[in-house]
């Protein structure tokens, strides 16, 4: 096992999303979805309830479509591990406006806290470096979280952050479950009402 991880996941996500303004957020299934929703239900968040492994690629498609907006994918270690090749595909495109931040508790939190590969030392930040991310880091301090919040607005991506958090399970805070609603309100908030007439 790696060294003790003490960062509180809700505090990390709250710090990343404070005064989020026009930031576009994709939340991976499970706890990252609840963490993001705990900061407030927002139409410019697309929270995934399924399709495990797809959060980073949803973020890539969005970032390519909206190069003038900043896109943050917030997901878990287990979710990212299921779509690890996504990091290579992002590395080919290198969108400056995309950040992938992994809330890494080294466990499958929704299924009984079984250890993930990161508990055994698999280094996601190193993989992101190898995939060509402009910057990649392992984050263990709140000061680094705050720096990441500033950096993800600087259009110098793609950025990757593996944020080592404590393996606790704060209360569930759920967004709507209706996928069509989540999609349509996101498009309306981003593209405008004409999105429904496209």
């Amino acid at each position, binding site marked *: 096992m790696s060294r003790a991880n003490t960062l509180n996941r809700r505090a990390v996500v709250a710090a990343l999303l404070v005064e989020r303004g026009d930031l*576009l957020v*994709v939340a991976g299934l499970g706890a990252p979805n609840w963490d993001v929703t705990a900061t407030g239900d927002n139409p410019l968040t*697309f929270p*995934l*309830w*399924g*399709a*495990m*492994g*797809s*959060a*980073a*690629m*949803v*973020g*890539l*498609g*969005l*970032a*390519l*479509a*909206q190069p003038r907006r900043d896109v943050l994918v917030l997901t878990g270690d287990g979710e990212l591990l299921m*779509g690890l*090749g*996504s990091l*290579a*595909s992002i590395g*080919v*495109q290198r969108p400056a406006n995309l950040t992938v931040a992994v809330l890494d508790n080294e466990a499958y939190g929704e299924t009984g806290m079984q250890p993930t590969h990161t508990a055994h030392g698999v280094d996601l930040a190193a993989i992101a470096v190898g995939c060509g991310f402009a910057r990649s880091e392992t984050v263990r301090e709140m000061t680094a979280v705050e720096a990441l919040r500033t950096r993800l607005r600087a259009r110098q991506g793609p950025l990757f952050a593996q944020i080592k958090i404590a393996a606790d399970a704060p209360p569930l805070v759920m967004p709507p479950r209706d*996928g*069509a609603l*989540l*999609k349509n309100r*996101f*498009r309306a908030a*981003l*593209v405008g009402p004409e*999105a429904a007439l*496209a």
Partner: protein
Amino acid sequence: MSAAQAEDWPADIHAALKAAQVKQVAYVPDAGHARLIKLCAGDNAMRMVPLTTEEEGVALAAGAWLGGERAVLLMQSSGVGNCINTLSLMATCQFPFLTIVTMRGEFGEFNPWQVPMGIATPGTLELANVIVHRAGEPARVGDTVAGAARLAFSSYAAVAVLLPQQLIGAKTFGK
């Protein structure tokens, strides 16, 4: 239309995708898609997104639509199996989805390892809520893709166009 033009079905697919304003072209290469990939790569209005596995393209298409763009996924029939769980995203959220699938494991197949997924491809797509069209005649391929694109992007449907081996030619392995 001359016979030569009628047989340039990859150019017809490219024209149909362009007319449908497809901007993101996600793909895992297949020999049957080689000319189309080249045509799309030469088009400044299209962004090529090579994938490591096909389900990445399903998620990419969802993200593109969230951002106001249209995507297509080009793949071989063996990649359809990789997409199954991610296709739940399209069904649950009613995302438009367009994929063009070159078939293996059917007519004239030399490699037995291609057969199980080739045979299962149409049924797999249908079970995953994807509408399946097949474009076997060279002269009809462009129209079929144009119709599939309209169905996908105007009616928020998931649509696959299968290109059979009679159209693309079976891979011979020099035999």
